[in-house]
């Protein structure tokens, strides 16, 4: 758990130090990646609190979420419904994030 927190901080520091420029073609997928990353983090935290955390599931779900979400948006862009599908992905993942955050809250505060 501590290792995960440190890794998160190191990732943040890495981003701050490297300050990578996002290439233009990747720009539409950035919000999707952000929401998927948040979903993975909250999901992992909740699973850990539930006592069923699994590193493999954590990483695989994270990568596959980002990939599938990006694919959906990519396909939508090609078919002219990119922004709508992007909204759909954000809504679905957002609901999950919110639900997981609520579950974490119940674990932590017992309320």
């Amino acid at each position: 758990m501590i290792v995960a927190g440190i890794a998160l901080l190191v990732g943040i520091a890495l981003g701050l130090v490297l300050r990578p420029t996002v290439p233009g073609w990747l720009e539409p997928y950035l919000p999707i990646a952000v929401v998927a990353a948040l979903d993975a983090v909250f999901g992992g935290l909740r699973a850990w609190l539930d006592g069923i955390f699994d590193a493999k599931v954590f990483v695989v779900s994270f990568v596959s979420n980002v990939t599938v979400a990006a694919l959906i948006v990519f396909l939508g862009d090609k078919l002219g419904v990119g922004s709508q599908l992007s909204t759909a992905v954000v809504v679905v993942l957002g609901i999950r994030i919110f639900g997981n955050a609520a579950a974490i809250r119940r674990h932590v505060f017992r309320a």
Partner: protein
Amino acid sequence: MSTQPPPKPVESAQLLVDLVNNHLDPGYAAAAERRGPDAAPRWYDRPAVIVGCLLSGFILVVAYIHTHRGAPEATRVHDSLVTRVRAAQQAGDELANRVADLERQLSAALPKSGPLAKNLDLARLQAGLVAVSGPGMSVTLDEPPQPTASPTPGRGGTTGIGATNILTDRDVRSVVNELWRDGAEAISVNDIRLTPTSAIRFAGEAVLVDFQPITPPYEIRALGNPDVLSTNFAQSAVASRYQTLKGAENIGFSFTDEQQLTLPASASVKVRYAKVAHK
């Protein structure tokens, strides 16, 4: 034949119920069940968590930086525009100073007395090339204190220019023309001297005098016999129109006699095609 209800609506509704109620990836529960309660840690557990958290933090920060990099960009563009405008204004001022300087040199080089000097002085005065002073009058036109453009009912963006700015180039021009008619010998608008080639025009909502934008209040100063000027002006249709507008639309309008006015010189007379016709 079949009494079984169609399962489809229930299934599709289940999708929504799952979406709202089961937030956790089912993979966690499945993996926990598969591995049993006391599974030994695998070698890749820790690196996988580290890589996943590293990636998450990295993505979040990249998104943050990417989002906030755009804002300074807009500020930078705005700042550079402001700098360019300032630089252009400064360049204009410097050029005007240079013109004044050259004018001084020119007048020093020209003959000081004699009929030629007199003729030249008169011509330059009439052309607005030298600063002049003397008695006269000044007329001030101003927009109403609060713009009368209250949010009009209807579609946004349909408020016309006339609804926000009451005074336009036409008003300044009509006052100037009236003053010429009343016997003015030299006129300046917001300290821009009018010459025989001056034009009062508009661009968007701005009033331009010789392509220099001016903003309200518009102060029009005219040299001439103060009594004749102000009497004629007070009786003119133009003055009565702006008196009416002052009552109706609350614009600022006033005119006074002046015993001593100084009008600046203009640098904008450029005669390129007209030549003196020799008799």
